[in-house]
């Protein structure tokens, strides 16, 4: 029985009324709206502390490693798997980096390269069993979680190792250099000019790309986003990005890690939406047998998603270690839960085939803003956990609810 709603024919001439369009796409933007609502709520509850330049910088530093891992986890989840070991890998790589740099005095550049390679190897070692021997990823990575937790304990001999060379700490605590020099705004505050310029340029470039894309789609008669909506959406996003950029610039500028993170987010958005490997991962998660019979080497693609996860977990491990300026046996404990929660809050499906990079990033920020906001207003760590758990359940429930209703 054909019960599907009939899409408006893409005539390119505006198509359907704005109201209908917004209603139909509410789910798509629902998570973004929730994030904004949560931010407004905490901005109000914390008397404006949330969006103070210092706190905003902290918010980014605190969540960067979760977001970076969420990018890899999203691919793993879309492919129909899960990786429980990432928290332990963060700890292990941090320990490895500490031992190499602090105890063996190896320069930070070769250390970084080796650590990323080791992360890839860890991903390969786990992906091998999942992809080629069809052992459930839950079990393989549960084993990995124990193994790497144990190995980081062994590496550190149960002790904390630090501090790291200052250049390495810059990975987390550094800010991009201001090539134009600071500019005094009103005597007391100076503004980081490079950051301001970047904060203006990036959204303008994105608008340009979006507009070109829209023209292209119109030419092929598939544009269905009303012009008003397009303008409003781009304007709001650009203004928000510029405002946040300005806030950051009035503290110390854009953190290095923000640049790394933003680059990776754009890269992975591109990979998932526009490349053959991305398409193959979605197909495998959607129906592995059909993907295989379409000539896709499903084993190899699955294997690659785990290698990718390993490398990103290693990068997160380095950033986290640099942030703490020490490697401890406790580093990374239960990170995997935050990462997985970010993906599911962002709309990924546990059965695979569905999920977006932007969704996972928004999911991670929802968790991050709540952590940060609740800490500022003094909610205890105990109740924070309870509330975060309920938010995860509520987000997934809403997703399922709207899917059934559609």
């Amino acid at each position, binding site marked *: *029985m054909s*019960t599907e709603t009939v*899409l408006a024919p893409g005539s390119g001439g505006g198509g359907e009324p704005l109201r209908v369009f917004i209603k139909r796409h509410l789910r798509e933007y629902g998570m973004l709206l929730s994030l904004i609502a949560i931010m407004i709520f905490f901005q109000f509850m914390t008397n404006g502390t949330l969006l103070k330049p210092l706190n905003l910088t902290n918010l980014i530093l605190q969540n960067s490693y979760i977001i970076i891992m969420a990018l890899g986890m999203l691919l793993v989840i879309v492919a129909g798997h899960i990786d429980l070991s990432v928290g332990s890998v963060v700890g292990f790589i941090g320990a490895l980096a500490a031992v190499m740099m602090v105890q063996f005095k190896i320069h930070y550049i070769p250390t970084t390269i080796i650590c990323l390679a080791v992360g890839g190897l860890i991903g390969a070692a786990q992906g091998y069993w999942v992809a080629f021997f069809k052992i459930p990823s839950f079990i393989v990575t549960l084993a990995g979680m124990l193994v790497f937790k144990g190995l980081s304990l062994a590496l550190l001999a149960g002790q904390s190792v630090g501090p790291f060379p200052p250049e390495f700490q810059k990975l987390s605590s550094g800010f991009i250099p201001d090539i134009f020099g600071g500019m005094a705004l009103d005597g007391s505050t100076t503004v980081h000019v490079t950051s301001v310029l970047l904060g203006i340029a990036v959204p303008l470039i994105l608008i340009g790309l979006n507009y070109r894309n829209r023209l292209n789609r119109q030419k*092929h008669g*598939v544009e269905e986003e009303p012009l008003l909506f397009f303008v409003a959406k781009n304007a709001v996003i650009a203004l928000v990005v510029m405002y946040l950029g300005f806030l950051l610039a009035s503290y110390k500028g854009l953190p290095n890690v923000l640049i790394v993170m933003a680059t990776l987010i754009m890269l992975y958005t591109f990979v998932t939406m526009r490349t*053959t490997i991305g*398409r193959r991962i979605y197909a495998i998660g*959607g129906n592995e047998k059909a993907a295989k*019979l379409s000539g896709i080497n499903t084993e190899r693609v699955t294997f690659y998603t785990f290698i990718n996860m390993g490398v990103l977990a290693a990068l997160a491990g380095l950033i986290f270690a640099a942030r703490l300026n020490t490697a401890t046996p406790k580093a990374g404990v239960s990170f995997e839960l935050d990462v997985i929660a970010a993906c599911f809050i962002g709309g990924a499906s546990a059965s695979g085939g569905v999920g977006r990079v932007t969704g996972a990033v928004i999911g991670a920020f929802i968790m991050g803003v709540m952590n940060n906001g609740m800490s500022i207003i003094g909610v205890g760590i105990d109740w924070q956990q309870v509330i975060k758990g309920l938010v995860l359940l509520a987000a997934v429930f809403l997703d399922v609810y709207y899917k059934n209703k559609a």
Partner: protein
Amino acid sequence: MTAILEMRGITKTFPGVNALENVNLRVESGEIHALVGENGAGKSTLMKVLSGVYPHGSYSGEIWFQGEERRFTGIADSEKAGIVIIHQELALVPLLSIAENIFLGNEQAKYGVIDWSAVTLRTRDLLRMVGLSESPATLITDIGVGKQQLVEIAKALSKEVKLLILDEPTASLNESDSDALLNLLLEFKKRGISSILISHKLNEISKVADSITVLRDGCTVETLDCRSEPVSEDRIIRGMVGRPLADRYPKRDPKIGEMLFEVKDWNVHHQIHADRLQIKNVSMNVRRGEIVGIAGLMGAGRTEFAMSVFGRSYGRRITGKAFLNGKEIDVSTIRRAVDSGLAYVTEDRKHYGLVLNDTIMHNISLANLGGISRGTVLDDMEELSVANTYRRRLNIRSSSVLQQVVNLSGGNQQKVVLSKWLFSKPEVLILDEPTRGIDVGAKYEIYTIINQLADEGKGVIMISSEMPELLGVCDRIYVMNEGCFVAELPAADASQEKIMRAIMRGREAPADEQAPREKIA
């Protein structure tokens, strides 16, 4: 005659669609009532209304069952009244036994403790009634689809069924299993159990049905009485499509060219039991512009043969050679088989053919992502125009190529799978049951596409369990039985009898694996 069931003026709407409009259905006590109509005509929706899947209040109209008006709130409610529906996709738990499945949800238990001897005894009785000689302890996964269907019926009987609804019960059965099932329905009729039979196989309907209700576009078209005089298949088709379908198979002038694809001495061992030889020394060929059929019963090894040729996607220890245009080709992986010019359209499109929750567009491009990308970067506008081309060419009925395939009817889903493989630009297409579970009108369209492919000079290999279809479409037919090709018939000389005879003869003397193939010229 009294009516056991009367559905009066049933109207059911989904947002934007009138699925059923003022439908009337009257089933007499103790009759077999066939319900026919094209896919999307509303048969399944009507049965969901009847069985309470769509509870009272979500539709308008009345349901009278055994003389009183019923307002079912759910499946459990309608089952209590004695209405049991058996779905096309069986609802059995593979790793539980026959007995456990029959009494699932209806356990023979006291205070929650199952009385196993009662279960076994009752299961034996039920299995005897449906003519199935298996132990109650046998696991469902160990018996074939035909027997599983019988278990479903036994399960229905265990619930004191008064009206049995079968949705496409023979869609995945071979001829002898289908016959057994239909005879069982006749047996039930004698005992006063009425049935509603939904089927696309019109020959079966004319064999057993007492009356036929035809649905079209959500309305009752007519109810035909078969008791007074037999109703011809053409008559039924006319009711279903609203016009006489002059010919069920499109005409075609075969222009058969040089040798295109050959398989020689193909041997395949069983996927799991690697020491069991499943395909035995098969050789075959297809010429340019030729449509070659492979006939055989369920389990003859046709799908296994086709999949083993298509990049070893089935089987182990495969030996043999494949040639395209006289040159040996490498078909050792699916990618290589595709690159060599093969395409295989699966018999099970939902599980092996489509990514159901993805769009038509993404499904069409899946087997040839290279064709819509530069390097590894996809060109979405190119992809869109490719998808639109095939949507037009194969007449895929949908709102746009961005629609999810899960929402399409069976025939349109099949066209998406075909589009996917056409876009991979093959030389040879292997079509495995290309018209399974799709309606008469869509079948005609699929045959037309197949003919076009042959006219373009491609070679088509078509596997089908429907012999009239093979006879109507193919130029040459191989007959397969128990892993061997036992006969090769030019379509002009072939008939259902000749094919059946070849199969049966193969059955009697299977000892010699290298039996010379019979040529009937």
